């Protein structure tokens, strides 16, 4: 029987919740070697190896085929794998790690409620300032897809790998696309979410490469996890 590689988060709350759920479903995650190792075994299923990776690396590993199965945020999965790419897909939405990917603009943009407004602001901004309105985000692909679907053009993405919510105040971007749970961080930074600015309602998901979704062990794992949700 071929070995399946199951990638799970290596740190933080996502790791605790993922491991908790797996154990609740009757399996056990065992680390090989020291407690700090990045490899492990799933007991309860034959030939399933565990890879401890960061959540964003898990999405990339599913895409490249290095991992057959993985638990990661839906936001990272959708960012890494385009919707028309069948290389991996969500098998199960897990009931933890809820967060929304949203478009947020400064509170002082009193004239902006919707994405359609944003398109007009982009034109106005270019006319008056001679350069493109900038969007700070780590979700470059989700942003491009959402903006294109809403007919918003004439902006530029500035890649931001942390503290994105501070970009408008710092002057490094005019608006942001970021993840939020309660919206408190956005409010504290005087940003507001657009009426139609919800790009994705994300949560942690179990995803699998297309070639192993039908594997009996995968189906057994899914069935056991479903009972716990």
């Amino acid at each position, binding site marked *: 029987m071929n070995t399946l590689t199951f990638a799970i988060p290596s740190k933080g709350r996502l790791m605790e919740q993922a491991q908790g759920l797996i154990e609740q479903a009757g399996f056990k995650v065992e680390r090989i070697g020291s407690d700090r190792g990045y490899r492990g075994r799933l007991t309860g299923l034959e030939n399933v190896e565990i890879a401890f990776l960061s959540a964003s690396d898990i999405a990339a590993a599913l895409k490249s085929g290095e991992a057959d199965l993985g638990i990661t945020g839906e936001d990272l999965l959708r960012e890494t794998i385009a919707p028309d790419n069948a290389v991996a897909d969500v098998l199960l939405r897990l009931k933890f790690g809820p967060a929304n990917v949203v478009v947020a603009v400064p509170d002082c943009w009193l004239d902006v409620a919707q994405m359609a407004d944003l398109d007009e602001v982009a034109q106005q901004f270019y006319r008056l300032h001679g350069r493109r309105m900038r969007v700070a985000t780590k979700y470059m692909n989700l942003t491009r897809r959402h903006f294109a679907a809403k*007919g918003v053009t004439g902006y530029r993405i500035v890649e931001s790998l942390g503290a994105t919510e501070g970009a408008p105040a710092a002057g490094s971007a005019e608006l942001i696309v970021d993840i939020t749970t309660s919206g408190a961080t956005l409010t504290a930074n005087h940003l507001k979410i657009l009426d139609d600015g919800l790009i994705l309602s994300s949560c942690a998901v179990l995803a699998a490469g297309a070639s192993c979704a039908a594997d009996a062990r995968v189906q057994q794992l899914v069935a056991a996890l479903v009972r716990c949700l």
Partner: protein
Amino acid sequence: MAGRTAKEREALARQNAAIMAVFERAGFEQIAPDIIQPADIFLERSGEDIRARTFVFNDPNGAELCLRPDLTVPACRFHLSHAGQPEKEARYSYLGPAFRFPDEKLSPQEFTQAGLEWFGAGEAVAAEARMLKLAVSALEAAGASALQVTLGDVGLFAGLLQDTAMPERWRRRLQHQFWRPEAFKALLHSFALGGGKKRSSISEVIDAIGTANPQDAAVRWLEEHHLPQQGLRGIDEVAARLAEKLADRSETPLPQAAVEKLEAYLAVEGGAEDVLQSLRAISGGAGYAAALAHYEARLAALEEQGLNPKRFRFSANFGREIEYYTGFVFQVEARGLNLAGGGRYDDMLQDLGAAQRIPALGFAIHTERLQVALS
């Protein structure tokens, strides 16, 4: 395949030599615009959609550069930096690589374009017909046959829109969204419902302006709600748009007849001569009539070039993908492959720094695709 074999390279070179010979005989001098271009010139004009497919990188000083995604802008920059008087007529040809990230159709990431750019040409329709003739001749010289030509004319729509009574700000928004058919349709129908009647999260702000000066009202709103000003976008810019939104509320809806007329135009499709009847049936004003006269004169000019416009197709929707076109657009296909495309883009040189608007026509042949069509 990592590169071309000697045989493949020779075959492509032979094909392209036949194309370039046609260009040379027509009096176009072959230039070699830079392959590496400043990124902002493409990105600031095209926005994120092109950026997503352009190879962008930084030099050691942090300046953003790119590999040219096409040769039109590089040829324009060449012209502006070499020509003493950019408004004087210039005819250029080029043959060279362009680069784009593969899209979902998995087109190659580097490909060879052969094309022409004709700046400052006089007699507009004659020059347009000449460009199409040269594209067809070049493809035929390389061995292509059974070519299918599609024509479009962005000027017809612009004329019709200009003639349709509506607030100038609505017209500006429709013109802007013309390039995105779905957003255009949604916008057009929102104007038919009166524009800004639907409530949204900023309706209360607009309510609060009342009869006050929008800028004073906006400043007061920020103060009362303890909202700080943030970023480059000033309160005057915010107030200008609030004023428009306020005006939209009392605006007369766009009459259904006007909506139908614009949509009827955009649905026109058929033989390039057959559609004349449908185009004439649309009652525009002076702007549309002038554009239509231009279209008819162009058909005559195409015949003078020895082309047969009866065999060409016209689509009112064609040309809605590339935002810089300002009038005539065309595309030549064979065996289902889009081999060449081009048109008129009269705003580009001025946009890139020329002192005045300079007529510009151009097209590019996708030479690897031509090779596939010929195989």
